[in-house]
């Protein structure tokens, strides 16, 4: 009896060790590049570019010089503001189009609505690298070449399909009795949508707002294609392409900028992750 007990204890310990070993592996794999951003952005240059130093921690005291440089000597603040303006405008356009569309497809259009919903969602899968050539012509016709307003026009092409789909799923999950009761009480259909459906779907609307905003922050291809002036760039494009002089990469500044731009998106994703997954799969897989 004791030897088998001891053996099973050893086997259990081995299982635990390998389990936590595997968890650690995944943790390091996912998080190391971000740890590397943090370390690089707070290191001074002589520490950063000395091969004799151990790169994983600070050999000289941490410094804020890269952040100072980023805010004072580069257009970082402009890019931040550009991204904010682009994000807010795209959110507004997306809400105006996607809220009624999602509601209509969930409640008012019946069987056709289902097919139409799938059709709209599929346009989300049409890639930017297929559309950037004709869209750059459209942008030029609108007189918006090399301006951040071109992105305000173009980004809703993927946020509207995605958010219509999200809202459709959300409205479907709400009981229709409340709006029906309002209509019976003399409210118009439109009134029921404004006064009943919208306030009740605030959590869904919040998800749409957050995801539209993060999608605009993550976008890179259209920004790269349409914008070449530094002062018109959104933050992702600016940090990734504008902190390079000739062949010299300003790694401390690049990592500092990447870090600052990543944090809000990372937080938003973690909070809204479950809704996002339900949005992608929920409408399709019930």
């Amino acid at each position, binding site marked *: 009896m004791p030897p088998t007990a001891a053996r099973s204890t050893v086997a259990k310990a081995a299982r635990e060790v390998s389990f936590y070993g595997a968890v650690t592996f995944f943790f390091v794999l996912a998080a190391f590049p971000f740890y590397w951003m943090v370390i690089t952005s707070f290191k001074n240059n002589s520490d950063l570019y000395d091969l004799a130093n151990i790169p994983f921690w600070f050999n000289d005291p941490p410094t804020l010089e890269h952040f100072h440089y980023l805010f004072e000597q580069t257009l970082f603040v402009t890019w931040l503001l550009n991204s904010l303006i682009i994000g807010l405008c795209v959110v507004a356009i997306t809400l105006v189009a996607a809220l009624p569309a999602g509601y209509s497809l969930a409640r008012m259009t019946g069987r056709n609505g289902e097919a139409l919903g799938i059709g709209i969602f599929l346009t989300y899968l049409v890639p930017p690298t297929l559309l950037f050539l004709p869209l750059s012509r459209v942008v030029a016709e609108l007189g918006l070449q090399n301006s951040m307003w071109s992105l305000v026009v173009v980004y809703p092409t993927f946020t509207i399909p995605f958010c219509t789909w999200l809202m459709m799923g959300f409205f479907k999950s709400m009981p229709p009795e409340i709006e029906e009761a309002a209509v019976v009480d003399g409210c118009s259909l439109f009134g029921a949508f404004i006064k009943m459906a919208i306030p009740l779907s605030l959590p869904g609307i919040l998800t749409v707002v957050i995801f539209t905003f993060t999608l605009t922050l993550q976008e890179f291809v259209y920004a790269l294609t349409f914008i070449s002036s530094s002062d018109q760039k959104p933050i992702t494009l600016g940090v990734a392409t504008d902190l390079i002089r000739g062949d010299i990469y300003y790694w401390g500044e690049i990592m500092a900028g990447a870090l600052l731009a990543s944090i809000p998106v990372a937080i938003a994703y973690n909070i809204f992750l479950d809704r996002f997954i339900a949005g992608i799969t929920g409408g399709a897989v*019930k």
Partner: protein
Amino acid sequence: MIAIPNTVAKPVSRFRYILDRRDVLGSLFVAPAILYVLLLVGIPFLLAVYYAVSAYSIYDPSWDFVGLDNFQDILEDPVFLETLTNTFIFTFGSQTLGLVLGKFGALLLLRPFPGRKFVRAMIILPWAVPVALATVAWQWMFDSLYSVINWTLIAAGFIDRSDAPNWLGDPHLAMLSVIVVNGWRFFPFAIVIFLAGITAVPQDVVDAATVDGAGFWRRNYQIILPMILPIMAIGLIFGIVFTFTDLSIVFLMTMGGPIGATSVLGYKGFQVGIVSGDVAHGAAISLFMLPVLLVVVVAMLRFIRRREI
């Protein structure tokens, strides 16, 4: 004098009557979204198709129809065939890597352990953070001189500083690097998709299988896997579409180089159509994505249908 309020009231009520018809208001509600998508996705898409059979370039914005000449030019170019192969290797490699990592990561995260929420939050990062920003972090990690990966390999005694790999400068290593970065970016998405699928499997089905004597692997591959297949398919479809058409990772890390070794369709289309201004050939290159996209979309529709019946 009394008649005036009546005539004013009538159109208002008719207007209200129209708005109260479910189908009319329904069409009005969905119209802005459809119009936006038609104008800025539908028409540009047709324009892209027309570009591909025209002689259009930014220097000569003519609309001359040239038939399939552009496609013929492209297919006669050996560099393009390499690009096409690269795109498949890039997609297949990174999706496989992402799926394998995703499957194992999901199995780990299924079990409760202290700090699981925090670990999950950190594991989501590669997918959540804007791809361009994560890519520049990797670019710095693959730096030819200050690569932290090389530093570690040298310090561990695996390699010598004199023959340290130049990750983005060697054709094979550069392809490996972009695949690793894209697989790394995709695996958290695969994890959450797997998790969403597995937690949706009813526990009593799993329990019944256990009672009937099914072991760990049997439960996993004969009970759970078939049940989560549709949700996996949707995840994979997203992965394939966004990888097959990707531009950002290759653009930022290698610029398609060295000597075209990591050039993929999205990058080539950008290089020819936008940078060189040869819109017609660029559009034709981009259109090579279409067959793959169509197959993927049809597969997706079939899965959606099957679930709904």
